[in-house]
């Protein structure tokens, strides 16, 4: 069943504080709102103000939403080993999983087979000499692989949430993510 057909879509972004995954989840939530979904988005952090495993979650539906938290993600994204270990277990069987293969070196046994291990941090660092837009590269890959919403909506949402000074870099990172995903998808075929 394609993600589009789900009655309720559940998404989890996870990583370490400072990696921008909460912002990524907010941008994706924006995208879903723009696409006409009802959306709720939430975040949670460890006891550490910063640095621990943290996550951003989205529930989207065309109907009224009655849940408050993701229980079984349809999409799972992990940008750090800690967060991957902590949050991978309860994903859905066919969940779309996107992992930073540069930072997550020990891959757990996922329930799903729909897994993409891509070295985002590495590639982004190479391309931009900064790892900051890694989160947006993830969004690019997700836009491509989820095939839920038109890429243009992502681009608009990014523009709205990212400071003008770094928009260009981030849009490029988005494109990079799309490209990486396309390549990987091709590989899979």
């Amino acid at each position, binding site marked *: 069943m394609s993600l589009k057909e789900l009655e309720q879509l559940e998404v989890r972004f996870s990583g370490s504080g*400072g990696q921008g995954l909460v912002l990524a989840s907010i941008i994706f939530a924006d995208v879903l709102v723009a696409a006409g979904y009802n959306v709720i988005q939430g975040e949670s952090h460890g*006891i*550490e*103000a*910063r*640095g621990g495993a943290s996550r951003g979650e989205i529930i989207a539906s065309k109907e009224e939403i009655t849940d408050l938290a993701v229980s079984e993600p349809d999409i799972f994204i992990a940008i750090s080993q800690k967060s991957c270990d902590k949050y991978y277990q309860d994903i859905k069987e066919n969940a779309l999983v996107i992992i930073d293969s540069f930072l997550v070196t020990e891959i757990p046994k996922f329930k799903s087979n729909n897994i993409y291990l891509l070295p985002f941090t590495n590639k982004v660092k190479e391309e931009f000499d900064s790892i900051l837009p890694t989160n947006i590269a993830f969004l690019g890959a997700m836009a491509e692989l989820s095939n839920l919403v038109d890429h243009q909506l992502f681009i608009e949402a990014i523009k709205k949430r990212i400071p003008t000074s770094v928009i260009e870099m981030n849009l490029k990172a988005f494109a990079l993510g799309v490209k990486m995903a396309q390549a990987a998808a091709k590989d899979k075929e």
Partner: protein
Amino acid sequence: MSKLDKYLRTDQMPHFACPGCTHGTAWAAMIRSIEQLGLDKNKTVMVCAIGCAGRLPVYLDFPSIRTPHGRALSYATGVKLANPDLNVIVFMGDGDASAIGGNHLIHTARRNLDITAIVATNEIYGMTGGQYAPTTEGGRFASTAPFGMIENQLDVCKLVEGAGASFVGRGDVYHVRELKDLIASAITHKGFSLVEVFTTCPTHFGRRNNMKKPSVLVEHLKNLTVSKKQAEKMTEEEVAGKLLRGILLKEERPEYVETYDRLAGFKEEGESV
């Protein structure tokens, strides 16, 4: 592992602070001065409150109490009066000590209670995500100062001096060797001693003020302060806008508990008259 292991709750390490947060540097300097003075761990009580600065002593293997935000000095007052034999050290953030805790600060200083208060001034509320503090420099940005800091900056040292403190010192985490000695002098001072330590918060202060890199922020401190000695050799213009570093005030003044026990005729129960 660390040479200082015996002062740490090593099972709690690494501590929670952000990468490059130099509260840790100030805190380590404090441990080193405790080591230098050879204080008895069992008789040295750490009193802290809430905030990043106030959280660090969780990692120290001393008897410790973390109070509600701003209240550390009032609790410390009770600890000291209950048992004047203890060394009581209070480690606070600048917001904790001088905003919500400002009243306790001035009155503990005035009473000259034999407590050492260390205020870690990072010019921001770190724990709550980067709001301005009374100590934030004019024009700096903070989440609640989107147009730049509008209020006049508080000088914690001048404040406690005005309140009647008998020992006031200032240091920073660039001049960290001096800092250790300064804290040691403060602890050995009989009466209330305050040490303000300029520290750095890359996560919130740095990020909002174009000094994200931890070392850049620390470097910035280098130029913020000037030692009292150096200042004496400098022209007024050269000193202007800089904060003095070192022991700024040290006087012998009656200590509260001593005066109390003498005047009120304190005697342990069972003591003969």
